[in-house]
């Protein structure tokens, strides 16, 4: 394949710079958080570097393949990801009652991570046909709903409430972006409101408890409520300038659950204080605004929706995760992009970034 020289000229170095900055902070933070935890095997931060390098390679590869290719194969990619998800339910390793991983050799990965990306691709493909005058109406939308509900059911069954929530939010974000009729949106909203109580029954006991605990942390001070309180203490105790690198106590003493994954931001807040937290949040804000710009400047509908979908995914991850750590939202198990530990997640995030780079550097082509 011949690579256009103009691609290098238009390569989005700013986007790459922001991503690398966040990822580096992520590694440092992970190093500090887990340094004192006794664990056998490779230290987590080294594993994370390994995943990061693989992810960056994948990202570059994704960026240089012309996105027409993704458009042509969107539904096939979606089907493959969905198939892998079925494999998880069937043959997935059962770890503590939660089936999320598929194991290939010594590597295991979570297909639900890749479902998110393939879902965005499939929606971009669908919506690249423009709507009629006023916007899309419900009658045109059975396929998108089908694309959403198919993996949703399986993901909820796993059970992985966090990913399911992300799928729904990305779905509605894209609906609004591509212009859906207000009356249709209202109908969906009302119908959704009616379905939520039904869905409640499908939640596992511990998930219900987490959500109830958010509204009243005293309900369960030993379990989920305890996590929330400890997380708030960790962030708050950082104050304005923080306790300093490697000096956080809350996270090191094991007061925080899942401190290297979902609650990683509390360790950051504890050690780097308001200043450090705002710096990282600023980087995320820059990433998202830059991504939105890429979306609206894109040359065609498919790439615009694709870029927007990725940005929406990143935004909801950041907003919900930080909101959860700060006690603004229930604990639903959504990791923080580029900061949380997790191989599949870092790779899916970087695939998303690769797509953004892809769209960004081709906006002057054709």
């Amino acid at each position: 394949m011949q690579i256009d020289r103009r691609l290098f000229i238009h390569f989005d170095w700013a986007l790459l710079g922001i991503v690398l900055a966040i990822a580096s902070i992520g590694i440092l933070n992970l190093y500090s958080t887990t340094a004192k935890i006794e664990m056998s095997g490779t230290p987590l931060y080294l594993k994370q570097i390994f995943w990061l390098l693989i992810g960056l390679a994948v990202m570059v590869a994704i960026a240089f393949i012309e996105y027409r290719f993704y458009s042509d194969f969107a539904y096939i990619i979606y089907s493959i990801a969905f198939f892998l998800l079925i494999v998880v339910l069937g043959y997935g390793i059962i770890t503590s009652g939660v089936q999320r991983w598929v194991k290939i050799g010594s590597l295991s990965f979570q297909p639900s991570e890749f479902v998110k990306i393939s879902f965005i691709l499939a929606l971009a493909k669908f919506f690249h046909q423009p709507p009629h005058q006023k916007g899309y109406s419900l009658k045109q939308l059975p396929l998108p709903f089908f694309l959403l509900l198919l993996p949703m059911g399986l993901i909820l069954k796993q059970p992985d409430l966090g990913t399911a929530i992300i799928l729904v939010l990305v779905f509605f974000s894209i609906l609004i972006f591509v212009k859906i009729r207000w009356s249709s949106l209202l109908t969906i909203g009302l119908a959704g409101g009616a379905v939520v109580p039904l869905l409640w029954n499908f939640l596992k006991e511990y998930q219900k408890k987490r959500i109830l605990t958010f509204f009243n942390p005293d309900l369960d001070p030993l379990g989920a409520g305890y996590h929330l309180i400890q997380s708030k203490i960790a962030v708050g105790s950082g104050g304005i300038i923080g306790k300093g690198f490697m000096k956080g106590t809350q996270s090191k003493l094991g007061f925080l659950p899942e401190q290297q994954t979902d609650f990683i931001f509390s360790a950051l807040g504890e050690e780097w204080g308001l200043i450090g937290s705002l710096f990282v949040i600023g980087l995320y804000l820059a990433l998202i605004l830059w991504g939105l710009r890429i979306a609206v400047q894109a040359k065609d509908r498919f790439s615009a929706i694709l870029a927007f979908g990725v940005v929406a995914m990143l935004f909801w991850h950041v907003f919900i995760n930080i909101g959860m750590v700060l006690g603004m939202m229930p604990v639903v198990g959504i990791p923080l992009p580029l900061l949380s530990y997790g191989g599949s997640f870092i790779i899916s995030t970087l695939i998303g970034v690769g797509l953004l780079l892809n769209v960004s550097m081709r906006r002057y082509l054709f």
Partner: protein
Amino acid sequence: MMELNTQRMEDFKGIYKYLLVFVGVAFFLIFIRLWFLQVIKGSELRRLSENNCIRLRENPADRGMLLDRKGRILAHNRPSFEVYLVPEDLKINPGVLIKVGAMLNMTQGEIEEKIKAQKRRAPFKPVKIKSDIDWNELALLESNRVHLPGLIVDVRPRRAYDYGDLASHLIGYLGEVDEKELKQSREAPYRMGAQIGKYGVEYRWENDLRGVDGGRQIEVDALGREIRPIGIVEPFPGNNLFLTIDLDLQRTAEEAYQDKNGALIAMDPKTGYILAMVSKPSFEPDTFARNILPEEWKSLVENPYHPLQNKGIQGQYPAGSVFKIITAIAGLESGMITPDTPFTCTGAFHYGNRDFRCWKEGGHGAISLHRAIVESCDSYFYQVGLKVGVDLIAHYANEFGLGRATGISLPHEKQGTVPSSSWKKKRFGVPWYSGETLSFSVGQGYLNATPLQLLMLISGVANAGKLYLPQVVEKVEDIYGRKLKEYPPVELRRADVSEKTLQIVQEALRGAINDPHGTGWTCALKEVKVAGKTGTAQVVRMPENFKKEDRNRMPLKFRDHAWFVAYAPFEDPRISIAVLVEHGGFGASAAAPIAKKVIEKYLNLNPSPPLKMTEKQSDLDYAD
């Protein structure tokens, strides 16, 4: 490749500014929240974090009570005072450890060992040093508490079994939750060190009994002394279980065993409710509640008489002559015999090149069905068995539930074995020999059954073929006395046997207790008619020249097991019972008197005086 669509791109530009505002507002909210936590509440939260001021205190729920069918308490909870130390606090005040040790009569080494044993402890989590301390120790600790930072004395509910080892196998026992159970219980979390049902009803009804644990978050000062609670959740007690057993009847049955080993189960044949369930030797559930010592555990496990086994459902024994009930039914139902078909007993039956002996040396002479059951003639059933064949006998054994688990809600129930020609082919790869049918037709050979299965058999006969699921719990109530669950009788199936056949067998079983020469005469009662059958399960095969008188000189472990199954009253059965006495010898002398005491008790009869065994050994004492 498809051409990409560039229509209506202006839609996206139109919404761009709204998206910017939305993202801006979202990040501003995060900023506000950060400001609130880190600047406004920063110093307060920092103080909380600095000494890791929050301690968690568990507050376990009271476990639900176990009650008998009349509401008498079999298992409940009593308060127990437990002593904990926070190792992190001891580093600041090392003297505390020595002082506490002195008050509890423990050496420094012992305490340190307990702390070290908790490897994967979360920071500042208290370690239990001693549980169930007495009042003197408590008073001493409490009065010195101010000088002992890092010491915690807590009240915990502790399982109490007021009747010692009564019904211990049915009740079961508790133990500390293990790694595997911790992992499995994601939806209903247990904490490390929590008590969980491990055996018996305590195990099967764990989810009902457990309740919901509570807890407290307590703020402590730099010395580990409590300042104030931050959050409290009250525990909610577990549900109460009403068992189907009757405390008095259970006690009578246990006492009747004296120092013998074996199993007894009594049931209401018309409901399947278990009235008493004994397995001997038994154990004290309480030793498990207070964390069993290694040497106690060892002695229980290594005891050759298996005290940890509920023999009523886990012990598998040859059914012996009790099985003649099945052989008789198979003969009648298949039409191979009528009640009047005569066979001859000469004391032994020659088949192949071997003599199959009847227990009665002189033989029973010409004999038909009724007398064959009453006097338990072996030769008669050898010949019936040969006529009917192994597979038909096996079929009727299966009809009454032998060879499969009854489905009682207790752990580790065994299936027993009912051999058949296909079974043997599959198991050993060789065909069935008709000589084996002979042992099979009198309940020896490959045949194995649990006492509960034989109880099902006799109950089915008593109840016109209807078999009920044996149940041990009648209902579950919450602490307010509201009924949460009920376990009504469940009819499993109706044995495919004609009423006439059953009547003939019932009459014969009544005869076995009440007729002259009946082998079960030791269970005969004046006020009501009992029907039943004795049996002997061979442990080792006797040499052909074996003298009966030698039996009493045999080592105990080679002596036969004694069986007795019965129901009463004959006309309207209210209780059915199966008794097994391990190495007890003969059903009539070892097992039937135990059944008699239980039946008398249940039917409120006056206890009859102990039977005088004649000095001179009569034939019947050796009846099979």
